[in-house]
């Protein structure tokens, strides 16, 4: 479904990604962990080409997408993204946030889009908040609207960039539940998170990244309880505590 080969990214003289290879099957959930500044967010953004990689290949269903002739907008339609800071459109209601993409990008009929948008909001448990503005919603509710907004584009895969780390503890649960539901429905997901419970229950594989390289890859139990690499062990012991 998604394959990344020898991905390279520099920011000026900073070498952020030093040859990342990964593959995610259809319907699989991959969790990425790693210290801050290790390149996790950059990696996610390189997959939907919000950031242009300097080298390597990004493939969606076998098609290399980081080529000049491929429309970036098309790639982003295929791969939805959820951000750490939600980034809901401040001037639009929850429903308008969800329907903006379908109406303006997919050119869906506004009424149909609204029906579908309400259904999506109900699916993330916010059927009654359609007309609320982001500032009137809690962090957890905003993030769930953001998930619905990404789903509205009918993406083939979803990227989550630390979706719960900006949330107050009492709201983390509701967001993770929605994500688990998505995973159960067969969505292909790449999730950057340090939520160990979620990673253990939902993910099939975990990737540990440090300093722009994949250090270790394995099933949740392996990574969390018997990591092979010293660096993984050090990091895991810090977040498990």
């Amino acid at each position, binding site marked *: 479904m998604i394959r990344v080969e020898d991905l390279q990214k520099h920011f000026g003289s900073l070498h952020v990604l030093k040859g990342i290879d990964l593959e995610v099957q259809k319907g699989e959930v991959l969790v990425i962990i790693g210290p801050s500044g290790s390149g996790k967010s950059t990696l996610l953004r390189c997959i939907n080409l*919000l950031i242009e990689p300097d080298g390597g*290949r990004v493939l969606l269903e076998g098609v290399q997408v980081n080529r*000049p002739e491929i429309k970036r907008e098309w790639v982003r339609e295929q791969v939805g993204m959820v*951000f750490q800071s939600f980034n809901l459109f*401040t001037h639009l209601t929850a429903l308008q946030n969800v329907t*903006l993409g379908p109406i303006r990008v997919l050119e869906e009929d506004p009424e149909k889009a609204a029906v579908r948008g309400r259904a999506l909001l109900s699916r993330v448990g916010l059927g009654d908040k359609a007309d609320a503005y982001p500032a009137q919603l809690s962090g957890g509710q905003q993030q769930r609207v953001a998930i619905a907004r990404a789903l509205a584009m009918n993406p083939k895969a979803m990227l989550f960039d630390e979706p719960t780390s900006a949330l107050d503890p009492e709201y983390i649960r509701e967001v993770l539940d929605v994500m688990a539901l998505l995973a159960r429905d067969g969505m292909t997901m790449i999730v950057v998170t340090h939520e160990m419970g979620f990673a253990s229950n939902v993910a099939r594989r975990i990737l540990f990244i440090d300093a722009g390289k994949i250090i270790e890859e394995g099933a949740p139990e392996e990574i969390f309880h018997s990591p092979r690499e010293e660096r993984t062990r050090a990091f895991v012991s810090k977040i498990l505590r």
Partner: protein
Amino acid sequence: MARNTDIQNRRRMRIFDTIAAIVVTVGAILYLLDTLAIRWGLNQQYIATRYPDYLKAAQVSLYVTTISYFVGMGIGFVLGWARSVHTLPLAKVIEVYRRTTAAAADGGRAGMFPIRAILVHGVKYYLKRIADAYVAIIRGTPLFVQIIFAWSVIITYSPRMDLTLQGLLAGILALTVNTGGYQSEIFRAGITTVHSGQVEAARAIGLSRWGAMRHVILPQAVRLVIPPLTNEYIGLLKASSLVVIVGAVTELTTFGRREAFINFHVFEAFALVTGIYLLITVPVSKVVEWVERRYRVPGLGIQQDRAARV
């Protein structure tokens, strides 16, 4: 129920406030005029009979200002956008492009001359430089000089045109170019204030650059820049009085000056002129205030109701 009566009460209070404000303002103006009349022998007869001519002159000011303002808004938006864009020098663009295409192994385009990239980035880069220069020149020179300059350009290039038309065109041209520069700063501020995460989210759902601008950045930026844009309109209306230098255009100040110094109705003329400027600017501010309230969104810009701030 309680909520309804609350809203009704507030509306009633607002209407009362508005009426009170109008009464006080009109009263103050009448009082002032009356004082002036007694002290300086203001000719009320003159004012009562000649004010329609002043209103006609005010129309000229109004449409010169309004045309310039809205055309200038187009210029201001484009320049402001250009100035807010992050650009790279071309050498850097080419280097990045080489790296990307070299890596795209099955793209088969490695080493190809990056015409598209050069075009896109070159246009962005030079647009930004041009916009910077434009603003520097417009902001750095007096509007008065700009009007004379525009006038002399028009006189030189179409000497046989009607005098009034020449003057009007010069006025509109200079004011347009001028307000364009100032509005570009306003738009730049508005656009850069919208959080970068908003743009990223817009691009992430597949909106194009223009789509993100139109549906996400602009609606937020415009709400933020309504107050400075209103300021600019009022400033421009007052600045339009500088068109007085082009004697052939009968805008409000020109007309007033003529009446004052040729027909010797000095105080009457300037009482009327100032009064009419106020008559335009105050309602404009009020209307904009209403628009601002009407389109206010929670979490964006000024939050509280005026009542809640007391």
